[in-house]
C-alpha cells in the first residue's frame, strides 16, 4: 500500500479527534497486517470506491466509544450517554465520517478521485475483519478515553 494514501488518514484523524474531543492524541507505531485481525468491539466502517478502492475502519472498545460519544455530545451541550444507544452509534459514525471526509478531500487535492459510502457501524464481541488480497495498515491512537485504531485497507483499481 502506498504511503500517499495513508498520511491523509493519519493527519485527518489526528486533527479531527483533537478538534472535536479537545484532547491530546498520542500516535502509536503504524503496522501492517495481511491476515484477519480482531476488532475491539465497536467498528465504524466507510467504503471507498473510484481510482482506489477499499475501506477504512475505526475501531475501539465499547467503553471507549461511550466515553468518546459522551464527550462529543457534552461539547455541544447535549446529554452524555451511559450505554451505546442509537445516539451513541450515530455520534461514533459521524466521527468516522468527518475523518474520512477530510482525508478524501486531501487525497482528492493530490489527484486521487474516489467517493465515499455512507458510514456503517458494527458492534459485538469477538469480531474479526479480513480483507482478502489487501494489506491493512493500522494506525493506533491513544486518547484520554482509551485506544482508537484506524485500520485502512486500500488498493489501486486495476
Amino acid at each position, binding site marked *: 500500500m502506498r504511503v500517499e494514501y495513508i498520511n491523509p488518514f493519519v493527519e485527518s484523524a489526528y486533527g479531527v479527534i483533537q478538534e472535536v474531543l479537545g484532547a491530546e492524541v498520542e500516535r502509536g507505531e503504524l503496522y501492517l497486517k495481511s491476515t484477519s485481525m480482531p476488532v475491539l468491539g465497536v467498528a465504524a466502517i466507510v467504503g471507498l470506491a473510484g481510482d482506489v478502492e477499499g475501506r477504512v475502519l475505526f475501531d475501539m472498545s465499547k467503553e471507549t466509544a461511550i466515553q468518546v460519544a459522551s464527550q462529543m455530545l457534552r461539547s455541544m451541550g447535549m446529554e452524555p450517554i451511559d450505554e451505546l444507544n442509537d445516539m451513541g452509534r450515530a455520534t461514533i459514525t*459521524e466521527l468516522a465520517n468527518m475523518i474520512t471526509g477530510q482525508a478524501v478531500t486531501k487525497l482528492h487535492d493530490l489527484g486521487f478521485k474516489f467517493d*465515499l459510502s*455512507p458510514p456503517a457501524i458494527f458492534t459485538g464481541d469477538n469480531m474479526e475483519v479480513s480483507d482478502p488480497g489487501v494489506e491493512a495498515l493500522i494506525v493506533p491512537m491513544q486518547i484520554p478515553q482509551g485506544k482508537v485504531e484506524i485500520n485502512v485497507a486500500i488498493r489501486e483499481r486495476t
Partner: protein
Amino acid sequence: MKAKQDFPSINERKAQGLKSTGEPYRVLVVDDSMFVTKQISQILTSEGFEVTATAADGIEGVERYKELYPNIDLVTLDITMPKMDGVSALEKIVEFDNNACVVMISALGKQDLVKKALLVGARNYIVKPLDRKKVLERIVMSLNR
C-alpha cells in the same frame, strides 16, 4: 418609578434566527446522521431559528421541501446520504424552486464538489467539523444574499 427603558439593555443584538418581522426563519435539516441533525438543530434553535422538519435522505428531503413550500426559508443539506445524495437533491429542489436557500453541510470539501454544488445553486457550503460560529455565520450570510 423607573420605566423599563431606563435600564440599559445587556443584549441589544437581535437573535440571528429571526426575520425583520420578528418571526423565526423556518429550516429543513436533511442529514442521514441523527447526531448531525441534532447538532445543527441545537445550534439553530439556540439563535431563534425554527427547525420545521428533518429528513434522513435526499429523496425524503426533496419531498419535505415540496410539502412545506412556500412556508420554508432555508434547507441544510448533507452530501453523502443513502437513496439520493445531496447534490442530486439540491438539483431537484432548485428545479422546483429557483429561489430556494440551500446550504450544503458535509465532511467532504473536495473542490470540484464544492464548485458543483455552488454552480447548481447552493448558497453556501460548510465543511465539517461544525462549530456554532461557523454554522451561524454562513447561514445568516446565505439568508441575506
